């Protein structure tokens, strides 16, 4: 058993080495497939980042009456934070609101002059972010019907409703489209790789037949092809890993501007284990499974 296993591994390595041209062509296709699958993984990270940063912009603001005490406001904030629908609550005091307003309009003298006529006319507010667009109506109805409703001057939900729904709708669509496109591309890539391995084995169909006719068992014939597939997959993974790391390292800072603050290199390094596993599963998996399936056809002698 052990002798046969050693022979199978030896034959697999020898065949990989002796038909180096064909092996390298297989590796080349596998590298493309691994590169594509890894890119899809990185794109998933990027799209999640972009979706999250777009969704950050979807929120509602509760403007609080001028006579509300800070203690009541913070109590309301705490109540809101406890709600399962609420992702984040930010309290903006009257002073902070004035500071922000002044900063935004400092170059508009008329507005600044008008502002000077009053003693801080702005309201303090609470900015609320929910997890889903559909959660906002229930949040608003809670605010309108609960005890702290006497603190609330206005909720800007009716004006923001359309924008919030659009942001969530579009990002959800992008997410789904991303999953579908990734799935289709992954299937195409795997089929291309499978076909390459199948063609490489097609060249050996006569040899497989001879081996069967002289009494070799299926595993003794199939084993070296599987080993060859695994070797091709492994080399492709190692090459792809370094190639992608190199591309990200040199290209990442240059395209950082387009990625809206997404640090590709940190994401890659943080997920290195997962990426390496995905690459191994893709490269070695395709090599081994394709070899297994492709040889099956010629072993029926």
């Amino acid at each position: 058993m052990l002798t046969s296993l050693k022979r199978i591994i030896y034959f697999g390595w020898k065949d990989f080495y002796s038909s180096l041209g064909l092996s390298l062509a297989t590796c080349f296709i596998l590298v493309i497939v691994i590169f594509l699958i890894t890119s899809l993984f990185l794109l998933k990270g990027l799209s999640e980042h972009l979706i999250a940063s777009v969704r950050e912009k979807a929120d509602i603001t509760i403007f609080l009456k001028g006579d509300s005490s800070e203690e009541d406001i913070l109590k309301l904030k705490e109540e809101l934070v406890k709600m399962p629908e609420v992702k984040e609550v930010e309290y903006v005091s009257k002073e902070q609101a004035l500071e922000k307003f002044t900063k935004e309009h400092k170059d508009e003298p008329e507005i600044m002059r008008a502002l000077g006529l009053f003693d801080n006319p702005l309201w303090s507010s609470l900015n609320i972010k929910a997890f889903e667009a559909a959660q906002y109506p229930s949040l608003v109805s809670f605010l309108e019907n609960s005890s702290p409703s006497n603190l609330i001057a206005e909720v800007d939900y009716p004006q923001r409703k359309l924008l919030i729904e659009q942001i969530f709708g579009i990002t959800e669509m992008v997410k789904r489209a991303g999953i579908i496109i990734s799935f289709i591309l992954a299937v195409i890539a795997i089929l291309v790789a499978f076909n390459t391995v199948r063609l490489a084995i097609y060249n050996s169909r006569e040899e497989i037949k001879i081996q069967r006719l002289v009494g070799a068992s299926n595993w003794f014939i199939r084993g070296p092809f599987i080993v060859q597939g695994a070797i091709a997959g492994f080399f492709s993974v190692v090459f792809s890993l370094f190639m992608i790391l190199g591309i990200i390292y040199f290209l990442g800072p240059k395209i950082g501007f387009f990625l809206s603050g997404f640090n590709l290199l940190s994401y890659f390094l943080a997920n290195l284990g997962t990426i390496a596993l995905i690459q191994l599963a893709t490269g070695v998996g395709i090599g081994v499974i394709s070899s297994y399936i492709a040889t099956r056809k010629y072993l029926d002698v």
Partner: protein
Amino acid sequence: MISFKEVSKTFFTRAGHKQIIALNGVSFEIKPAEFVSIVGKSGAGKTTLLKLILAEERPTRGEIFFNGDNLGKIKTAKLPRIRRKIGTVFQDYKLLPSKTAYENIAYILEAVGAEENEILRNVPEVLGIVGLESRAQNFPEELSAGERQRIAIARALIHRPKVILADEPTGNLDPYCALDIIKLLLKINEIGTTVILSTHDKEIINRLGKRVLTLEQGALVRDEERGHFIL
């Protein structure tokens, strides 16, 4: 050892419309250590008969037994066990092109799980029997037709099979080489191995003076103990 009982084999053309009868109701028995020649014109069914013994083809009707195993019903996974008892010399040699002469012969022992020292001892010995020690490291494409056929015989012998099937082993060879191959097969038969030789070489059959089965259009028309080539 080998028995055919009313064996027929029918093929269909690729389009599937036309039926070709390769063997038709053939029955015979071969005992251990016999030397049997199968003669007949091209297309008489000689190769089909050998393929049926090797279980490369299954009979359409009838039964074939090899050492008690019904070859028509045996599972594909169990075929290696049967084939290891048979050594086959193919007309087109069927050597593995990516392996040297030595490796081609050693492959059989490797496939049956023989130990390395056994391989190192037996392969040069068999290469000596076929007179090709000096060609051990040559690939099949670097060998002449006669040399390839002798390597094929060495491969068929290496695991000491019970039966040697030789399908027109002299078909591509000049008369000198052909005679050498037949002498080799006789030598193998003398040590107790059953030899089944398929040929259409009249001279060889008449010189052998052994049992001859004559096939005509898929039917067994003669079975003679000390036969001659009659068509």
